[in-house]
């Protein structure tokens, strides 16, 4: 780790002010990606602005059919939340299977989606559930939020404050884990609402995205068998020592089918 200045801030306004004063500042939420990256000397921000002390960013609330999770809510809190388990049990399950207990006790939902790791779990659910991301400046629809590998619609000084999830009729997330890192080689979240079926896919490509071909068939026939007919294009699939493009494409279909079955 290189030297940096550390700022613990108490409000979003203070965080933004610290960021604007910094040479090359970085917000840090749970730090579960940022700190290892810094320890490996792969990142050297001049300033670290710790959002962990901002009380208003934490917590889980329910209003009608909307579940709101504060950006700084940890994975462990989401997994253990009675509200989440009642509203969207698959989201609690997803959170409970991220990393290991140490990661879940520090890592946050806001940090995860702001980082947008191509193999992270939450982006698939945010997309499939049609969530809305609230920031200190605006609200952003899930479909517009994830823009590329480790890239999002967030501006440099923009801070996620909370995420709204509408309650689906049914939803399920199926993850095929990398045997080493336990990140998603492929993760597919399927959510069914009164009006539509949405599919979020993570791990497969450089950025989490909607599985529109799967959605097309599932909107007319919500069954795992319907997925068989879907052709998953190979060209955008990731390929590495753990899974080739062909295998990933195959897994997208298998995980989608299992998620559909789990929704039943």
């Amino acid at each position: 780790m290189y030297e940096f200045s550390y700022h613990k801030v108490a409000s979003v306004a203070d965080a933004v002010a610290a960021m604007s004063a910094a040479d090359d500042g970085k917000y840090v939420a749970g730090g579960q990606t940022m700190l290892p990256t810094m320890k490996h000397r792969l990142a050297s921000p001049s300033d670290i602005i710790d959002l962990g002390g901002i009380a208003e960013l934490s917590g889980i609330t329910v209003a009608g059919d909307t579940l709101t999770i504060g950006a700084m809510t940890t994975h462990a809190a989401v997994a253990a939340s009675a509200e989440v388990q009642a509203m969207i049990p698959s989201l609690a399950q997803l959170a409970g299977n991220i990393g290991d207990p140490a990661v879940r006790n520090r890592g946050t939902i806001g940090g995860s989606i702001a980082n947008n790791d191509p193999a992270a779990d939450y982006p698939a659910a945010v997309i499939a559930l049609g969530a809305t991301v609230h920031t200190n400046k605006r609200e952003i629809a899930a479909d517009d939020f994830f823009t590329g590998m480790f890239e999002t619609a967030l501006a440099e000084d923009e801070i996620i404050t909370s995420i709204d999830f509408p309650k689906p009729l049914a939803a399920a997330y199926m993850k095929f884990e990398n045997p080493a890192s336990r990140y998603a080689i492929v993760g597919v979240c399927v959510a069914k609402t009164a009006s539509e079926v949405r599919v979020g896919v993570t791990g497969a490509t450089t950025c989490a995205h909607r599985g529109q071909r799967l959605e097309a068939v599932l909107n007319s026939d919500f069954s795992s068998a319907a997925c068989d007919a879907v052709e998953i294009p190979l060209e955008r699939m990731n390929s590495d020592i753990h899974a080739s493009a062909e295998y990933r494409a195959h897994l997208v279909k298998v995980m989608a089918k299992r998620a559909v079955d789990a929704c039943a």
Partner: protein
Amino acid sequence: MVENGIGASVRRKEDNRFLIGKGNYTDDINVAGQSYACFVRSPHAHATINSIDTTAASASLGVIAVFTGDELAADGIGPLICGVTVTSDDGEPHRAPLHPALAQGKVNYVGDHVAVVIAETYAQARDAAEKVDVDYGLLAAVTDTGSAADEGQPQIHEVAPNNMCFNWPFGDKDAVETAFAAAHKISRLELVNNRMVTNPMEPRAALGDYNEGTEEITLYLTTQNPHVHRLVLSAFNQLAPEHKLRIVGPDVGGGFGAKIFVYAEELVVGWACRKVKRPVKWTSDRTEAFLSDAHGRDHVATAEMALDENGKFLAMRVMTQANLGAYLSTFSTMVPSYLYAFLLAGQYTTPLIYSEVKAVFTNTAPVDACRGAGRPEATYLLERLVDVAAADMGLDPGEIRRRNFIPLDAFPYQTPVVQCYDSGDYETALDKALLLANYAGFSARAAEAKGRGKLRGIGLSSYVEACGIAPSAAVGQLGAGVGLWESAQVRFNPTGNVQVFTGTHSHGQGHETTFAQLVTEQLGVPFENIEVIHGDTAKTQFGMGTYGSRSLAVGGVAIAKACEKLIAKGKKIAAHALEAAEGDIEFGNGNFSVAGTDKAMNIAEVAFNAYVPHSYPEGLEPGFDENAFFDPLNFSFPAGTHVCEVEVDPETGVVEIVKYSAVDDFGKLVNPMIVEGQVHGGVVHGIGQALLEGCRYDSEGQLITASYMDYAMPRADNVPSFDVDYAPTNPPHNPLGVKGCGEAGAIAAPPAVINAIVNALGVKHIDMPATPENVWRAAQAAA
């Protein structure tokens, strides 16, 4: 049974300090005035070093010194050595390239040591290390085991044309060819033994402390063999004379082979602490561990078995190419040679075996012993080949093994590959294992699984290994530079408690408990009054350390012999005190007694008399403290059959191990709980190799599995609950009747797992690691 004696599952005494956080590992040790070392490592797999500019690094905050290979060479330190000679087919010794501790003009793998920075803090040392400006001239790299010796490959060392270290043929080639020509059937298999990173939980560390007054270097090390380190560092690396070098191997958090060897960092730290006149500490980070710990395995081989019409093995032929990495690590040459080819007979009567091992250099980290060392490679090859032969002959895998087992009445059995097995009962172990695994009920379970869309498979592995390493005369004949005896000292204090000094080293094996059990059994001293001491050359008389499942089979016997000497001396002391003839004194349960009387004295009283010899036998030395050495006459030969049952999800290729049964012959068990733990750990290691662990370099020599993000270690949810049982035989060569158990699981498990997967898929072979994608592809191809 003596309380807490041989055969008791006594809880491990050492665990208290580990569980309460009071373990004392090398990195826990801090010496006043300590400085920190950071190594500059090559980012390139193969490059010349045109220049090294240390100016900026030397001027960096907190820096005490920056050294390169020039300073090391000027002081006449090093190079690192390989301690075992293998004679190549041209009659010449294996090619041994220069292995400097800090590079001399060239680097040969990513992680190779280029320079060292010593600073007041580790962070300062690391900052400065980034400022060492090295001008590299990049060369093409060679990393692939199978093609490293091919025409046109980049050449790594001038002394090793075609990157060949040795070509070592063994056996009667012509006789084997004749047998093949006359065979009813020939079974053939090409297979890879995947490269592994050894991965002890505690990374390597070294702390050097030079005392200007006594001119002694104390070197705290993560070592499995402190005296071997002292010997090599002194006699071969010129670090310091042996009597001016103290090696302390305190608590060590796992070794698995990787901490046997003498590494560059250890030599450099030992030398640098004298150079800068400051204690110097280096602790490997995990990335450095991946890059620079010696790796294991990495073979490609072709195996053929000639069979008669009854499925009897007539002859075997094995062609192996083994990757030794960029340089020869301390015992590297013996792993793919003597520890491999001499185990190719396995449990079978195969009368003729021919083996050719080509060992090659590549631009990868050095490869050396890793849990099992050569024997897992031999066992994997043989036990896979036997299953292929069974399929070729239409025989059940159990049946073909049974037809070829060395029968019980044939022991001692001279194999065609040097080893003479002293004892074993392979059929009993197989029978027990098949029962334990409910082999007979397998087809019903497979049918049930099929109904759930799963493919169920079962696989056997009948292994034998040579451990209790090793008879000195045998290894000397083979070209080893050391003897492999073990030593012990058993010392009574005047108050009657006992200190046991052993030359072996415990880094997870539980010696402090097991060895105390031996002593309580033999001398009748209460278990809690016995302390086992190891790991410090200033405390322990001498020793050769722990590897090759040798500690109990060799070191334990040395302890028993020292105890015998104490009993013999005690009889003299007791005879004098009890006013009886020495011949009338009997010893048992800790008491010396006069035969046929009730006159007796406890061994603690005898010890007191020996230190306060107011009334004492004339001419007898005072003191109750005995030394003993033991050099075994033969290896020991643990053996057994393991049965693995898997379920494959054909849709994803995921393999679940649903049942694993192990029946082993380890001879007598001193602490069954510890033995079972060793079996569990070994089997998990083997399952890791079979399913998960694959160390991969790209064609440019970059290690792509350089962290746990990409290198998959087995975890609790990858393995089932194990069923463990034993089928012991008594090894006549071992006075304690023990054989060794530390490596068996890692040796037996890989073929059991792969045989089960192959069985489930109905394919001929699948290479390790059987990752989900590989299994899925094989399932697709088979469907």
